[in-house]
């Protein structure tokens, strides 16, 4: 009677899961009913934390409560706790702060004590248990084992499952869940027409093999891994972590078992002979935001990084909030501060990863391990070829070192023509120190070029001093050459300087010669070995040989020159030694190679790790007792055979004995498909978390997951083949009233797509989507000037908008800058990835409408979609039907068709139709 009454009230008013659960039976269960009361109201002062404990008894330990007469099993009247919580005296009443317990809660406590006040260990710390298949009435409905558990609860709540979704709707749902983009109209009609009973499963298998699978499922993992492309905080410099993102996509596509997936990310570097891929996987822990700002202290930055790693590990694998134990023993869960720092000790073995950048205090830099990566396989192959070429050259150079040859034959020498005056206007490049007339010379030397330039002073240079002729040419790298040769003819008898420099640069090198012993007024070839160039006193340093732009020939003397012209012909830089030539080539190859490569951060442990101390009050400057590595005592034991490092930690986490990890993982995957977890607080499986709505289902999924070799694809396949998944998501208003959150899964899942999937779907619909998988981050169009607002390095204030195909890549490849993330995705609730995010928000705001209506990126999609529609055969109505099916797969109703036909009539514009379709709730929703 009591339960029926409660049930009514619940349905009419609060449908919250735990009250529902309570309604199931009158005798309160400790886990379901009592612990939430004690944990929420009492444990803070009468719980695990000895520092905070009042009155020296614990309510989280039965014996302690009994010893203190707080609880007398079977005897509510003698149990102090009831007096305390129901006292009218506000000074006496417990809890001392906050609202008093409700009547209902007190009743539950009383009933529980009456029934013997039995304690149960927290459900999530017990190993999953395989429940018997429930007896259900509607026996024809289940197709999968899991359906029995769902149906059982539904029948208890007097709910009926919805019928199976229509083929088109179901196929679209499956595509969105498995690969994140909708099916084409052809896919849908083929599916509708396919008579095979196995057609759905065939599609499941096909989609699970599609590269889109990894691209879709990686996003939520990247939220957990707080993957981003910048450091965060002040400066917010960019970093190269996309190889880690690609690793996640590939691992998911390859069907890597989740235990291995975990081990490689947590400890790939500690595996025997780790592959580069396994090293890149450890980027998981290098993704932490890092504060590079000036005044931060290096140990402080390190402590923050390590705290983040501990709490992320806790959230991702254990579904526990470890952070609380940073400063004191956990107030609700059995996690001591010591245990926290034992976990911290695993990470504190790593080498130093951040240091000051030089003596100044302004910047920091990463000092951790990095590995070289390439933007694509093609480039990698190219780089390998380059490396090979470099090795070959270096081997020859080494031989030459050992057995030097004499002068090199012409064949291997290399020449760089600086000036042959065959360019557009040779005279434009020339200048001089006095008024001159510059012209093409009327003769050229034999063996020189076709043209020569004459610089002639008028009148005759009777005075002493300098007379120079300068010639400019495009910037040229002369770093590898051994000599410069040029032709000169002059009527001046003097000392000369041959000078090289960059325009407007005061760094100059010179080569001196005179023509006293040469025949005047005839062409002479001068050879200037680079080794003989000197730096004149008036220069501030030697020329930068990699960028020479100008030569000048200057006569200088104490005497009058008695001459008036200097003619110059071919100026050529030459490499005449084989060794120099090869060294130059090696240098060039190395530059090319560097441009192809970047490096990404990975983990490495120190040979002699730092001793870990408990930090008093969480303060890194206040070390307490020293601790070694260790795990949480309340969970399964750590195999003593395991190495005391991250590898051991990883293996402990994915030990099949771990009661948490498999549950936590299947719950998240379930939540990604159904919109909510079986535990609705996927980030907290601890005492403060919600209880599972379907504990037997959760355990069944967790056990099957581990039995199926931790296969994520198998798990997803099991779920999508179930009747539960395949229900229609439409329901009566009454049913939605009764179960607004679909707690009972008595209809199919229906919720808005993530930011990335909205982008991906609309790109796919409009035919713009690039199918390129992986590679460096891309920069789709965003509003101007946003990056200028970041206080960071000057070279990273310009947003380098991508071009071509990269404008239309899937959202997962979009640059993720923590300090200023991509705005249109932010409007659809992408987190800033500053911390591990277990559950994304799903808001519904006007900014979303503005984004889809006005963001030039989405406007372009609508324009393109309009063109596509226009190009189809058939009547306007045919086109509208097909375009409608392109966005939401199903057939439009007559009314829907009318609305679109009317719009087309009024606007005479397919753009208006396309834009309407891309903005539909159903288009951005999985239904």
């Amino acid at each position, binding site marked *: 009677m009591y339960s029926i009454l409660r049930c009514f009230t619940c349905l009419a*008013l609060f449908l*919250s899961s735990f009250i529902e659960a309570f309604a199931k039976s009158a005798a309160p269960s400790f886990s379901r009913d009592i612990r939430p009361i004690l944990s929420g109201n009492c444990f803070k002062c009468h719980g695990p934390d000895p520092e905070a404990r009042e009155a020296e008894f614990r309510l989280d330990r039965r014996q302690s409560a009994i010893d203190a007469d707080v609880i007398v099993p079977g005897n509510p009247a003698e149990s102090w706790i009831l007096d305390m919580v129901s006292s009218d005296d506000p000074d006496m009443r417990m809890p001392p702060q*906050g609202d008093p317990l409700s009547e209902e809660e007190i009743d539950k406590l009383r009933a529980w004590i009456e029934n013997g006040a039995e304690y149960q260990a927290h459900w999530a710390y017990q190993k999953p248990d395989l429940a018997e298949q429930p007896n259900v009435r509607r026996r024809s409905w289940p197709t999968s084992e899991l359906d029995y558990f769902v149906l059982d609860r539904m029948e208890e709540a007097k709910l009926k499952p919805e019928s199976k979704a229509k083929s088109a709707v179901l196929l679209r749902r499956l595509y969105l869940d498995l690969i994140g983009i909708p099916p084409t109209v052809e896919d849908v009609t083929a599916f509708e027409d396919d008579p095979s009973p196995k057609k759905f499963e065939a599609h499941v298998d096909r989609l699970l093999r599609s590269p889109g699978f990894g691209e879709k499922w990686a996003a939520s993992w990247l939220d957990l891994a707080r993957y981003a492309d910048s450091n*965060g*905080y*002040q*400066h*917010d410099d960019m970093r190269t972590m996309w190889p880690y993102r690609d690793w996640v996509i590939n691992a998911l596509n390859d069907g890597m078992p989740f235990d291995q997936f975990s081990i490689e990310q947590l400890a790939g570097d500690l595996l025997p002979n780790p592959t580069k891929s396994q090293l890149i996987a450890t980027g998981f822990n290098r993704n932490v*935001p890092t*504060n590079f*700002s*000036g*005044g*931060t202290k290096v140990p402080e930055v390190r402590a923050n990084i390590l705290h983040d790693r501990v709490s992320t590990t806790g959230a991702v694998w254990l579904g*526990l*909030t470890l*952070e609380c134990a940073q400063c004191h023993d956990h107030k609700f869960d059995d996690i001591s501060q010591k245990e926290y720092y034992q976990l911290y000790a695993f990470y504190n073995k790593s080498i130093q990863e951040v240091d000051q950048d030089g003596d*100044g*205090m*302004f910047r920091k830099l990463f000092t951790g391990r990095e590995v070289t990566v390439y933007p694509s396989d093609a480039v990698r192959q190219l780089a390998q070829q380059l490396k090979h070429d470099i090795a070959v050259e270096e081997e020859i150079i080494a031989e030459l070192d050992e057995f030097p040859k004499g002068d090199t034959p012409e064949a291997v020498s290399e020449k760089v023509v600086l000036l042959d005056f065959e360019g557009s206007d040779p005279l434009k490049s020339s200048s001089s120190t006095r008024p001159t007339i510059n012209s093409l010379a009327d003769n050229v030397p034999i063996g020189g070029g076709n043209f020569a330039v004459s610089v002639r002073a008028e009148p005759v240079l009777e005075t002493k001093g300098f007379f120079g002729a300068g010639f400019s040419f495009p910037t040229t790298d002369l770093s590898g050459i051994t000599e410069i040769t040029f032709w000169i003819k002059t009527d001046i008898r003097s000392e000369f300087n041959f000078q090289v420099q960059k325009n407007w640069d005061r760094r100059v090198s010179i080569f001196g010669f005179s023509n006293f012993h040469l025949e005047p007024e005839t062409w002479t070839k001068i050879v200037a070995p680079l080794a003989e160039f000197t730096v004149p006193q008036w220069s501030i340093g030697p020329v930068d040989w990699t960028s020479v732009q100008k030569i000048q020939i200057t006569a200088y003397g104490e005497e009058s020159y008695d001459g008036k012209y200097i003619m110059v012909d071919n100026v050529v830089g030459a490499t005449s030694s084989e060794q120099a030539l090869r060294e130059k080539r090696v240098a060039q190859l190395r530059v090319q190679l560097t441009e192809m490569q970047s490096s990404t951060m990975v983990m490495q442990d120190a040979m002699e790790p730092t001793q870990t101390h408990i930090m008093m009050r969480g303060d890194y400057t206040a070390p307490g007792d020293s601790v070694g590595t260790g795990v949480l005592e309340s969970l399964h034991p750590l195999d003593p055979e395991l190495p005391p490092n991250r590898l051991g930690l990883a293996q402990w986490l994915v030990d099949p004995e771990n009661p948490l990890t498999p549950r936590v993982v299947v719950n998240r995957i379930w939540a990604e498909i159904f919109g909510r977890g079986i535990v609705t607080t996927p*980030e*907290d499986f601890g005492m403060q978390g919600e209880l599972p709505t379907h504990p037997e289902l959760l355990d069944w999924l967790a056990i099957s997951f581990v039995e199926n070799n931790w296969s994520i694809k198998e798990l997803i396949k099991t779920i999508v083949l179930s009747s539960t998944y395949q229900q229609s998501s439409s329901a009566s208003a009454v049913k*939605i*009233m009764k179960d*607004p*959150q679909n707690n009972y899964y008595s209809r199919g899942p*229906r919720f808005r797509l993530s930011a990335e999937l909205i982008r991906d779907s609309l790109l796919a619909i409009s035919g713009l989507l690039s199918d390129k998988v992986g590679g460096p981050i891309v920069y789709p169009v965003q*509003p101007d000037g946003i990056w200028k*607002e970041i*206080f960071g390095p000057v070279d990273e204030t310009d947003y380098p908008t991508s071009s071509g195909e990269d404008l239309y890549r899937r959202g997962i490849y979009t640059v993720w800058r*923590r*300090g200023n*993330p991509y705005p*249109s995705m*932010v*409007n659809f609730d992408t987190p*800033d990835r*500053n*911390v591990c995010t277990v559950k994304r928000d799903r*808001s519904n*705001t*006007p*900014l979303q*409408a*503005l984004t889809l*209506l*006005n*963001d030039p990126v989405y406007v372009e999609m609508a324009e393109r979609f309009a063109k596509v529609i226009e190009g189809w055969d058939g009547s306007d109505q045919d086109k509208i039907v097909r375009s409608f099916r392109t966005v939401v797969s199903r057939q439009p109703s007559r*009314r829907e068709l009318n*609305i*679109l036909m009317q*719009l087309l009539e009024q606007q005479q514009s397919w*753009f*208006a139709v396309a*834009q*309407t379709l891309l*903005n539909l*709730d*159903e288009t951005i*929703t999985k239904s």
Partner: protein
Amino acid sequence: MMDYEKGINLIKRRDFLKQGTLGIGSIALSHLLEQDLSASGIEHPVLQHPARAKNVIFLHMVGGPSQMDTFDPKPALDKWDGSPLPEELTKGQKFAFVTPQARVIKSPYSFEPRGESGIVMSELFSHLATVADELTVIRSMKTNEINHGSGELFFHTGHGRLGRPSFGAWASYGLGTENKDLPAYVVLKDGGPVAGTSVWSSGFLSSRHQGVEFRKGQTPIHFLNTPDQTSKEERRLVVDAINGLNGQAFRHYQDPEIETRISQYELAYRMQTSVPDLVDIDSEPEHVLKQYGLRNAEGGKTRNDFARSCLLARRLVEKGVRFIQVFAKGWDHHADIYTDLPRSVGRVDQACAGLISDLKQRGLLDETLVIWGGEFGRTPMVQEHNAGTGDLTEPGRDHHKECFTIWMAGGGVKRGLTYGTTDEFGFGIVENEVHVHDFHATCLHLLGIDHEKLTFRHQGRDYRLTDVHGHVVHDIIA
């Protein structure tokens, strides 16, 4: 049988009560049922006591103003000028760039009591002096962080690392919006905090509580403007078609989210005209523009983004926007307190005074809490080398977390009060410390919220803006 609309409300409300664990689960349900569904979800105020302030305008001087050159005169520095501070003072203290032995530098500015209350300000604030009697100056602020990124985060989220909701987001979460056509939390900036958007993040709260930046120029909100090729008429027809089709989908799925989306498309459509009107400050009368310093004596336009933000903030308050966060750039005076600091004051002085008197004239000051301050203060010691290059610079001051000055006005704070005392060097607090957590607790209190009850359950823990700290500073409340 309940009607559908109420059903939605129930769901939202239920989520909130359960999620929020505000200890207000017992609030009469009938009262909740009367509320309308609004754009931002929770519109039910979680007032624990009568609110003194309805709105907040938070003027953040990015970089950290120097207290001893603005509102906390230290004549003793004249004596100590050129010598290091006593060692016992600097021992164990964290500094960003200077060494503990760095020399003291006196303030180059003179100070005078202003108004009837005699609040002391440096000569730089000639305009603010005219509204001195409206202010409560707190000289005894204290923070935990000495760097900009973490200092800004601490000042706004109560936590020096990334990931927590900001003050404005908590206010939006706790109080909802008063204007269904505008966000509850708007951010205006002329330069901006170095920690970027994280400073107005909603953290683990729903993303609808994050600050929405109103930008300078033609597009105050990203994607507000209709594409060039679309006429106003076409936009109306397209929105009608979208909503017509969404209405059909609702009939089929009965999903309340579809109804919400319909209303959001309507709202978006209205915002396309209401927001540009709102940010069009040139429509203000001449004398108002002059008051903020946006027109010079001859009526010519002057360019001052901060002044524009202040005037816009007032317009937003009039429209019922709950929380307006304004950032003013250029207060990180490592190098040069002689010319740079007066320039920074010059950019904000008249606009601050104009804002306060304008709010007052319109009767809005009583219900609007105006806050002025930076993420920390500055050292009495001089910094004269560029921290990065080591080059010699003009004398400046380094970051300092042990004490700094802010002021507040309106919104239930006392008028003409100077609160808290620092030591003779302006280095540490002697009396009435107001930690950032206390500051947050006090501001929430003025908004009618008990800072210990405004909680959100995240990862099994009930988080607060004030974490496990914070005391309301009743002394400054009128």
